């Protein structure tokens, strides 16, 4: 079993829809939770970053972390065609030799059509 599980999709939604992307994880040592967006033939770019349970909002994006269930989510409101990309969850430990090492999910391919 992988440490981080993410549904690869693909996910196709109409413009304006609310998108929900999710990851589950098995290692309770993960303390940092991130979402990266990756456009085709580009490197990943950081979208959201949090280190605690609860919600964090940034514009149209909301990241949600539930440590008790080992479940993280990214919600995109009023989705736009420019949101079409692969979304990767990434988790990191807080201590020891693994400090700062990111473990990525497989990525979910999202297409928002006009």
């Amino acid at each position, binding site marked *: 079993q992988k440490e981080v599980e993410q549904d690869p999709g693909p996910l196709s939604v109409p413009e304006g829809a609310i998108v929900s992307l999710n990851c589950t994880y098995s290692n309770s040592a993960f303390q940092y939770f991130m979402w990266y967006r990756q456009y085709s033939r580009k490197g990943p770019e950081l979208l959201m*970053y949090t280190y605690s349970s609860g919600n964090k909002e940034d514009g149209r994006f909301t990241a949600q972390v539930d440590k008790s269930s080992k479940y993280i989510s990214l919600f995109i409101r009023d989705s736009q065609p420019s949101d079409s990309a692969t979304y990767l969850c990434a988790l990191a430990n807080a201590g020891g030799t693994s400090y700062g090492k990111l473990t990525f999910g497989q990525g979910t391919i999202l297409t928002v059509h006009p």
Partner: protein
Amino acid sequence: EAGVVQSPRYKIIEKKQPVAFWCNPISGHNTLYWYLQNLGQGPELLIRYENEEAVDDSQLPKDRFSAERLKGVDSTLKIQPAELGDSAVYLCASSLSRSGELFFGEGSRLTVL
């Protein structure tokens, strides 16, 4: 401010040939990472540097892969000899801290024939 710069962007080689990738991190970032990304997968860490020191190379296949980061700035990742299964995107990233806020380059896409 310039981002992480990688070269070459694309490389096609025959199997058993050597190949090298170069990375210039964001100025002032002391932590540098090399990740491997296979098609349809998330990136996987190959090696992490703190300044010149490789602090995590447990996932680097040392029989054919090597990396260096001279003077704690630029880094080179080498594969010798390349195998068909090495076809992938090699991503370099850098960060100020080790808490996960990585900045990635655009990657070097390797095709081994």
